[in-house]
């Protein structure tokens, strides 16, 4: 029998779903309840090596107010209809806008895109979930507020709420985004509206300036979770520094990564380099300048000789270290001396200033990201191999040189086993280090798609066995990653879920929580 819906929520009859849709329409109006295949198709594209059918929504709801969301959760509770919340839905490579499970209703909050407050003096913003970085960037420029944003690589089209709630990162000194979050408004599954921290206190004006409030700190449980729907979000902005000096340091040998990280760590911890330092492998940077097919054809991962040729042709290091200094000119001059002395000691580093690297498109987009400007250049990664497959593999380690080569060797070995390339970078945080690898594959090639799935699965297995936890993952592998953090944490997550969302209507499956 042909259904009028392209999918149905698990365990919900078409009759009950009809009733739920009818009620949604009463709340939102017909035009804001999407059920046709043509309307829902843009929500379905994922880059994961699984059938998109596994992540097909049954409907999408376009809410504009908190009151509408309260009514929506009431309907969902009545009919046991699960919803998958997205703000701008730009979690590309992590599942994008598609729900974790087939048949979930997407609650799309893009129309809730009011910038509620930007305080120039205290340097904070309060926004709704649909606000994009581009929107906020333009607002700040237009009002000459002298504030900088920190955003991930999809900058313009993504937004601060979704990125921070998924614990995404950026490239300015405010790049650890959740660290700079301050105050949320959350619609709970029972329809109550919670304001976290100082937001719960009547007449307080400190919601966006004091994070902790009184009692247990709750904001964290609304990140990478499905315990509530964040409808307002506060975060701190960086005052525009008087001076800014981005730079790149190139190294020619893979084993130099040990020295690089050992050099960076004290500079990061002491604050000499205040932003997360990216150490990008040549193959991570190459797509800005070249395509894989320019250098290699046939099966298997790209050979070292081709990588060296790419480095030569496009003036890349095997490692390309991107960082910046911020502050007054005097501060920058002092810190520049410290940085150049530290990196110059071994004689292996080639330090390039902004002027020397000005014509390099890879440097140009990195410099933009480090000063909070809009750029989408990193999307050229998807053209490296072509075919539309991408999964971010993101294990975390200590920021030590000794953690690098063994991770890289293991990653390359597993990727090579499946014929895939190492498009990786290390990002040195305050004390941690992210190892970010874009597992790129051709989704039109069934063999390669199958290989990519097995490869990613093996990467997760092998890294977790060695104690490298994955900090963020696509929806196809959320359960597996949740499992690697052990039964007690999973049990606590489940206990919280049952307490806050007994009917399991909010994004079941998010981070493996049901």
């Amino acid at each position, binding site marked *: 029998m042909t259904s009028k819906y392209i999918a149905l929520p698990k365990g919900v009859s078409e009759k009950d779903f009809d009733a739920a849709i009818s009620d949604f329409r009463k709340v939102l109006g017909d035009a804001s309840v999407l059920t046709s295949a043509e309307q829902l198709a843009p929500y*379905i594209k994922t880059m994961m090596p699984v059938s998109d059918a596994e992540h097909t929504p049954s409907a999408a709801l376009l809410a504009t107010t908190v009151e509408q969301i309260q009514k929506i959760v009431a309907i969902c509770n009545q009919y046991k209809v699960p919803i998958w919340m997205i703000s701008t839905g730009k979690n590309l490579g992590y599942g*994008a806008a598609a729900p974790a499970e087939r048949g979930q209703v997407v609650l799309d909050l893009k129309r809730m895109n009011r910038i509620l407050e930007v305080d120039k003096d205290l340097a904070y913003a309060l926004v709704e979930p649909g606000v994009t970085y581009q929107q906020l960037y333009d607002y700040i420029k237009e009002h000459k507020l002298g504030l900088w944003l920190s955003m991930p690589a999809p900058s313009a089209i993504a937004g601060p709420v979704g990125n921070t709630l998924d614990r995404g990162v950026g490239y300015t000194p405010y790049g650890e985004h959740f660290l700079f979050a301050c105050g949320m408004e959350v619609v709970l599954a029972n329809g109550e509206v919670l304001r976290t921290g100082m937001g719960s206190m009547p007449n307080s004006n400190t919601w966006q300036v004091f994070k902790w409030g009184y009692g247990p700190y709750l904001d964290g449980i609304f990140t990478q979770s499905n315990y509530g729907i964040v409808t307002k979000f506060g975060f701190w902005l960086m005052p525009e520094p008087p001076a800014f000096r981005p730079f790149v340091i190139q190294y020619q040998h893979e084993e130099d990564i040990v020295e690089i990280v050992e050099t960076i760590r004290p500079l990061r911890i002491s604050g000499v380099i205040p932003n997360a330092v990216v150490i990008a492998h040549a193959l991570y940077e190459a797509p800005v300048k070249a395509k894989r097919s320019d250098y290699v054809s046939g099966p298997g991962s790209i050979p070292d000789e081709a990588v060296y040729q790419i480095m030569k042709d496009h003036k890349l290091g095997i490692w390309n270290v991107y960082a910046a200094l911020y502050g007054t000119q005097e501060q920058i001059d002092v810190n520049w001396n410290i940085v150049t002395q530290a990196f110059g000691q071994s004689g292996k580093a080639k330090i390039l200033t902004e002027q020397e690297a000005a014509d390099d498109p890879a440097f140009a987009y990195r410099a933009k990201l480090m000063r909070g400007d809009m750029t989408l250049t990193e*999307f050229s990664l998807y053209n490296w191999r072509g075919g539309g497959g991408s999964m971010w593999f993101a294990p975390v380690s200590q920021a030590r040189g000794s953690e690098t080569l063994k991770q890289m060797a293991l990653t390359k070995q597993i990727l090579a086993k499946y014929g895939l390339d190492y498009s990786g970078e290390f990002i040195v945080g305050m004390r941690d280090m992210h190892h970010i690898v874009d597992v790129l594959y051709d989704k039109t090639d069934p063999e390669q798609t199958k290989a990519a799935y097995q490869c990613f699965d093996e990467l997760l297995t092998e890294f977790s066995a060695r104690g490298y936890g994955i900090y963020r993952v696509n929806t196809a592998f959320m359960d597996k990653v949740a499992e690697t953090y052990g039964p007690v944490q999973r049990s606590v997550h489940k206990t919280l879920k049952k307490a806050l969302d007994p009917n399991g209507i909010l994004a079941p499956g998010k981070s493996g929580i049901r």
Partner: protein
Amino acid sequence: MNETRRSLIKGMLTGGTLLAFGIPTVTQAVSLSQTFSGSTRNCQLLLGNTPLDEAFAKGAQTACTHYSSYRQGTLPTFKLEDELLTNPLRIVDLLMQSSNMRWIAIMDHGSAAIFTEMVRNFEGRLLSLGSHSSSSGTDASFPMRHMWTTATPVYSAGRLLASLLTQSQHDFFIVENFLGQAVVDSAMKDSSLAGFSSYRLTEQPATHLHCAGVSPLEASQLIGWRASEDWKSVLSQRDESSIDLDQAATGTTIEHLRFDNWIEATGYAVVATALGIGANQDSCSSRAFVYRSGHRYPDNHGLSGKHFVSFVIDV
């Protein structure tokens, strides 16, 4: 403090705002409003600055010419430079000025990732999204691959493309996944194709497979479907007196069409379907055409090892 309407429009990459605030979009004057099948929808070709634009556009214009040979008209074309990666606001402006417009686009995968997001933000209707690849060397067991996600079989270009590609007798497969089934059950009548044997999966009759030169078991493995021997043969109900849909529409049999390369043929099929030619009412959720002759596509045009994405969207 509420944001001003102006900054909303200027900064926004989320088109829903326009609808929410009731701001009318700008209608672009395009001369094709009465051209296609009496439709009032305008059509434009959007070339996304790929090395394959020219070939795709050539096929697209051929389709337009054939279809409109008795109506006059060519497909207006908008060429992007590098805006999607460097200046996405330009595309926002373009989409904002589109009203009642059907865009047929070709892009690389980097741009397509962004464009897909924009289509959703503008609450556009995505009729079909195709990913097209031709591997060089021995990269893949099947060097030429087309995978479509299509709203319904009505917007399916697969059968038409299959009929075009068989003429060159090079290996290919086409897989189509339909989000919504067409309401007409025509027992595969419309999708059968000369030279192909047709099957449906016994336990999932909405899964259709058309094979030439390969068994259904092997074909299902090659295209990444669950290997099954449980395929039920469907006798082709296409008799020679029935006229190909495109023939009916254009007066041109596909046998008389010749394309320089597979990209041109793809452009033809995508645009022809977007214009209403060759559409079928095959009631299925998934469909594939697998053609194996043992001949790989020659790389003498420099067109192997290439990938691109095609879109048909209504905004």
